[in-house]
């Protein structure tokens, strides 16, 4: 029988204002095994921990229940505290009477009743706790960064500079990401490529960095410190060791009708292409779906003109398997599809464009060589209308509930640049709010309004109607002047919401990293662990975690790198002792557990067992506790109950359920 101490925390008024903590302690004394119960203002404080340690010594306690906040906050604190008092750290259970109780209830009587029930469940569990001892596992001193945009590049550079090997896996033919598509950056208006390309070059030249472009993560197994990842290097059809990047193949390629991904489909590219001039690597890929040689077997012009003999039509996808200690996700974002926003006529008129398309139009290497012109007839616009929050801050299911965060600033940038370069163009911005928190951000926006005469109207646009004269009729509302606005525009620019790259869902599933309803990766703690995934060894960099501008992305990329370096710097990790074990007398040998194990931790062996005097050779499940992560999938699959999880045994869980239902 355990000798259990129950410690009820007030958490200042966080718990005590809604839960009668004295009553919880009083009720605890009536539970089987409980020999000590008390309440205290802050159990996590030095004094609080000392009270637990004293009670352990005075009353010879063997098990501890702390009724406090979520175990994610302070379980470790209390484990360490009891360890210092000579108790096994796994003899502590935390009853979460804050997040699960006081914070979500108003009525004291009800909340107290629930707190008592949660305390009871924890006592029932701790009655069955056994001391556990963690093992050790090694750390592979290599990091993987998924995504080669500014977030991935910065993270990789920081990890590599610390002396660790890093691989970047980038889906497209070049690193650079969204930032390479941007023309100028706010709030300083320096050219995006000018500040990005040095970093791209640095990453490419760094001795600790290997870049896999035109590649995707195919499979991930293992766990923190010891991940095994399969990377599919898609067939480029160009030998990277031979190609000199001269570009003749692209000039001569007769298939030139594929919309350019880099220029957002505003112009076309050849079938063999490098996405942009400063691409790294500067080695083209053949788009096999567009290539005449691949479609018909005839052509082969690129091969004929290639002096280096680099074209290889027979190249096949290659799978690279590598081990990593840490994985950083930096998968970035895309603009939402606008098919649900047809009132803005995006699909009806070439002159209704997204902001990212405008970036390409204003860029010297873009489809119009940097001249601001209408995509329909090439004429320079005189009236431009910007519409903010297209799909952002949306209350219905057409768009996103969140603020995309970057649009206010880039629209101010666009407006200012246009007014600067083309002073005869009138620029009107329809907005809900202008949000400019950030260093020098509001000053930047004020300049657009005050120095450049950009016409900001608070209000939304209801409809954009293409006219027979080629112009666009914009019907909106001015909420301050309380009047309807009808305006003829030459171009309309939509600040479309940004969303995580759709591929992230697949990647998150492979990594068992959690993801929210908007497909943003969830951080381990929204405030205190913003660059770590709840899954150990997975770190988050850039917009995959939430909307961010470039300076924020770079800061977060550095933070993710520091976290990854902190992990890689360790030689060994303590493993979680809560691993599964099979009872060989109950095991059927059916393999269902091995089938569901996400970590490949279960194997089978033929073993002689002594079943109450009956000796026979049976097929028995064996768990490799170094691989087991304690997820419990095997225990719920096992029909005979042979599989059990230390620290969360079937018996303990049923005891908790019983205590709750009592």
């Amino acid at each position, binding site marked *: 029988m355990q000798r259990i101490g129950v410690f009820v925390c007030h958490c200042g008024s966080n718990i005590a204002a809604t839960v009668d903590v004295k009553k919880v302690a009083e009720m605890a004394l009536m539970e089987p095994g409980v020999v000590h119960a008390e309440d205290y203002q802050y159990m996590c404080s030095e004094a609080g921990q000392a009270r637990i340690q004293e009670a352990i010594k005075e009353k010879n306690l063997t098990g501890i229940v702390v009724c406090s906040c979520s175990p994610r906050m302070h379980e470790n604190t209390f484990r360490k505290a009891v360890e210092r008092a000579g108790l096994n750290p796994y003899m502590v259970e935390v009853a979460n009477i804050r997040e699960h109780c006081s914070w979500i209830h108003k009525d004291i009587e009800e909340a107290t009743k629930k707190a008592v029930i949660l305390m009871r469940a924890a006592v029932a569990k701790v009655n069955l706790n056994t001391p556990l001892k963690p093992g050790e596992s090694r750390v592979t001193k290599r990091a993987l960064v998924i995504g080669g945009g500014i977030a991935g590049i910065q993270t990789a550079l920081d990890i590599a500079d610390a002396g660790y090997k890093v691989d970047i896996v980038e889906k497209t033919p070049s690193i650079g990401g969204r930032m390479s598509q941007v023309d100028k950056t706010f709030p300083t208006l320096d050219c995006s490529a000018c500040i990005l390309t040095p970093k791209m070059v640095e990453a490419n030249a760094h001795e600790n960095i290997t870049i896999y472009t035109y590649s995707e993560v195919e499979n991930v197994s293992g766990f923190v410190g010891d991940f095994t990842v399969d990377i599919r290097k898609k067939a480029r059809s160009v030998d990277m060791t031979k190609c000199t990047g001269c570009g003749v193949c692209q000039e001569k390629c007769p298939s030139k009708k594929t919309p350019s991904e880099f220029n957002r489909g505003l112009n076309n590219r050849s079938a063999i292409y490098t996405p942009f001039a400063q691409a790294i690597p500067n080695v083209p890929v053949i788009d096999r779906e567009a290539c005449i040689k691949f479609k018909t077997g005839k052509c082969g012009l690129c091969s004929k003109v290639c002096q280096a003999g680099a074209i290889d039509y027979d190249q096949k996808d290659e799978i690279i398997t590598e081990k990593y200690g840490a994985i950083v996700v930096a998968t970035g974002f895309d603009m939402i599809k606008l098919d649900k926003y047809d009132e803005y006529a995006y699909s009806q008129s070439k002159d209704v464009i997204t902001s990212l398309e405008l970036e390409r139009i204003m860029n010297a290497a873009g489809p119009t060589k940097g001249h601001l012109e209408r995509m329909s007839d090439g004429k320079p616009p005189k009236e431009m209308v910007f519409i903010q929050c297209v799909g952002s801050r949306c209350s219905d299911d057409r768009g996103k509930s969140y603020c995309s965060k970057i649009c206010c600033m880039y629209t101010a940038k666009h407006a200012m640049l246009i007014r600067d370069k083309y002073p005869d163009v009138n620029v009107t911005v329809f907005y809900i709010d202008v949000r400019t928190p950030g260093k020098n951000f509001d000053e930047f926006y004020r300049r657009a309004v005050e120095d450049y005469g950009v016409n900001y109207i608070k209000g939304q646009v209801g409809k954009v109607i293409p006219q027979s004269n080629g112009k666009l009729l914009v019907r909106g509302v001015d909420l301050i002047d309380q009047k309807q606005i009808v305006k003829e525009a030459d171009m309309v620019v939509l600040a479309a919401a940004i969303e995580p790259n759709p591929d992230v869902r697949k990647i998150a599933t492979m990594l068992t990293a959690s993801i929210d309803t908007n497909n943003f990766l969830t951080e381990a703690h929204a405030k205190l662990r913003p660059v770590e995934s709840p899954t150990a060894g997975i770190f988050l960099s850039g917009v995959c975690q939430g909307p961010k501008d470039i300076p924020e992305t770079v800061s977060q990329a550095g933070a993710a790198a520091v976290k990854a370096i902190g992990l890689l710097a360790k030689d060994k990790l303590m493993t979680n002792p809560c691993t599964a074990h099979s009872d060989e007398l109950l095991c*059927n040998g059916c393999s269902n557990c091995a089938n569901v194990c996400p970590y490949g931790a279960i194997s089978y062996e033929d073993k002689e067992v002594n*079943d109450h005097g009956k000796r026979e050779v049976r097929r028995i499940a064996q768990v490799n506790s170094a691989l087991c992560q304690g997820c419990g999938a095997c225990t719920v*699959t096992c*029909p*005979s109950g042979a599989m059990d999880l230390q620290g969360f045994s079937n018996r303990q869980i*049923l005891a908790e359920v019983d205590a709750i239902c009592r």
Partner: protein
Amino acid sequence: MQELIARAKELLANGTVARVLGWKAGDLPYNPEPAYFEKEEDFKDFVYNGFCGANLSKYMIEATKLEGKTLVCLKPCDTYSFNQLIMEHRVDREKAYIIGVGCKGKLDIEKIKKQGIKGIQSISGAEITDDAETLTINTLYGDKTIPYADGMLERCHVCKGKEHKIYDEIIGESKDTKDADRFDEVSRIESMKPEEKFAFFQKELSKCIRCNACRNACPACSCRKCVFDSNKFDSSQKANVDSFEEKMFHIIRAFHVAGRCTDCGECSRVCPQGIPLHLFNRKFIKDIDEFYGEFQAGEDITVKGPLTSFTFEDVEPSVVAERG
């Protein structure tokens, strides 16, 4: 039947198999029982007719541990169970000689009796070689004739097909007797209000006497030690002391066989209380079909079941909550 007996005797005589697992006549005309036949003279009791509903797959768990091969007679639907047991490493395929026996639908004596037929002395038309479309039942009160289909087990009306999924040889013709949709009853229950559902299952399950016949006949319920027989779990004791006993037992059992149940229908066939136990399993099968695409356990031993495999196309767990 004679061809089957002759072939079994031959394989026994030439040493291919050490024993034959089939059915022997019972004390009544309609209750043959599973039996081993090891010697020529044992075969005088061998029988194979419309009442041989018992699925012999499960017996092979122990039979394939014995010395030498065991010849087993499997009907088309039994072969699904056998395949599932192969996948779970419970039977040794190498130690089985499977004769796929012909089947034209198996009979349900309780269903026949329910038609007011009492004092049964003999039944003709149940012979497997007989192609008769009717059953003639000789009773103390004279002969009664009913269409064969009217005497068939529920599971035969939703027959999975006449194909044997695994066999060494086939003896006898089979017939697909499907004339109903197996999910009709499940759909009907799904459309009930929660309280109606509860009342329905309360009524059905309250008949349970915990004889364990369903568990003992079920080829998926083949754990070395059942959780209800083990003192390692609190479930056994709980099931015994609680008024919730029967429901607990059957619901836990349905969960334990989910994704592995081939819908062989043995649970309902052997239930002495006539509880439609297969409905629980079919509800799971229907859900699995809807969530993961159609899946038939035991159809193909190379295909992992949807509950023990993972693909990126798998539904999110929230689908259950969303559907209600």
